[in-house]
């Protein structure tokens, strides 16, 4: 396996050059901070700080209920693996408007950087493909990153992007931790803004 070189703090802005067009759901820890940094914790963003493993299905429920909106789940390798079976459910329901971005740092960054399964034997992109996800790719170089936005626009959904990054720190962004406020803020934005 090639050594990861990408800095996670740089990747989301390249994948989503126009984040206002998306509704974002993020799993806990680093991906939540990276996502909040991308959107400045905007109303189109619902980030988690718990419920590990739930990001993919929250995004699926949203994508099925808002078929005219582009929905992106931003998760980490640990969060995704906790409910890896949810990829099968995503593939089975096949929402064309859903993209899952897994920021794979190969470790559990939030709890001290303990080695994760993707540093050993697990290949998330192959798992997504095996689940039946329509389009999947691995981003691990600058050249891959240059093509990621086009992948989102051109490939049929649901899409899965595994972004291999170093084990460096996530984006330094302080997000709103009032969950009840965030859920109402998000819902109001999701229901009142046009699709993009």
């Amino acid at each position, binding site marked *: 396996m090639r050594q990861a070189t990408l800095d996670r703090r740089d990747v989301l802005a390249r994948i989503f050059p126009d984040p206002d067009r998306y*509704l974002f759901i993020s799993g806990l820890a680093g991906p939540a901070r990276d996502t909040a940094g991308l959107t400045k914790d905007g109303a189109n963003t619902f980030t988690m700080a718990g419920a590990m493993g739930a990001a993919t299905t929250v995004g699926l*429920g949203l994508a099925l209920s808002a078929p005219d909106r582009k929905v992106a789940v931003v998760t980490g390798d640990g969060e995704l693996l906790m*409910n890896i079976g949810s990829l099968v459910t995503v593939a089975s329901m096949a929402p064309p408007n859903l993209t899952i971005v897994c920021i794979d740092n190969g470790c559990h960054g939030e709890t001290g950087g303990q080695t994760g399964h993707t540093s050993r034997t697990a290949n998330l992109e192959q798992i997504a493909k095996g689940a039946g996800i329509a389009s999947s790719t691995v981003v691990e170089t600058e050249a891959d990153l240059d093509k990621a936005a086009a992948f989102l626009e051109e490939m049929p959904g649901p899409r899965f992007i595994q972004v291999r990054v170093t084990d460096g720190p996530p984006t330094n962004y302080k997000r709103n931790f009032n969950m009840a406020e*965030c*859920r109402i803020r998000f*819902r109001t934005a999701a*229901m009142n803004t046009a699709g993009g």
Partner: protein
Amino acid sequence: MDEHWSVDGHRHFKAAGIRQVAYVPDAGLTKLIERCREDNEIETVMCATEEEGIGLAAGAWLAGQKSAVLMQSSGVGNTINAIASLITSAHFPLFTIVTMRGQWGEGNPWQVPMGQAVAPVLEAIGVKTFQADTAADVSPMIEAGLRMAYSTDQAIAVLVSQRVIGSKVWVAGSSEGKP
């Protein structure tokens, strides 16, 4: 013969505006699941584990839709952290119907501890439980539970007793669990 409770259950779903139904297959839920699957206005999502249904309910709500999650009692054990950390913490509404095992006349010892723990465990994480001990209880509890969940942003579980579901369903085609 009276209609099966799933007829009223589906009717209450329609009246309440339920548009998404997540489930893990269970014999006691089959009729309700089939009614929902045949309904073009309801998106049914077969889950790999019940925990997925909790995320789906939150996601549907974020888009302005109402949903229901259907599971067997053993599946409740798979949902606890998702309910506590996501639903209860953020005050999302949740409506779930749980078909019970491990109680009335259970023949499978694997079902008993989780079945007996369903109500206290759900209540410990902030879910209000309506326990339907007779067939006549089920319909009004579904109707009342849906109203309460979506009018007051509460998590509500209707627990359908094994006494209502009947033992014939769950031992069909198998000698296991018979005395």
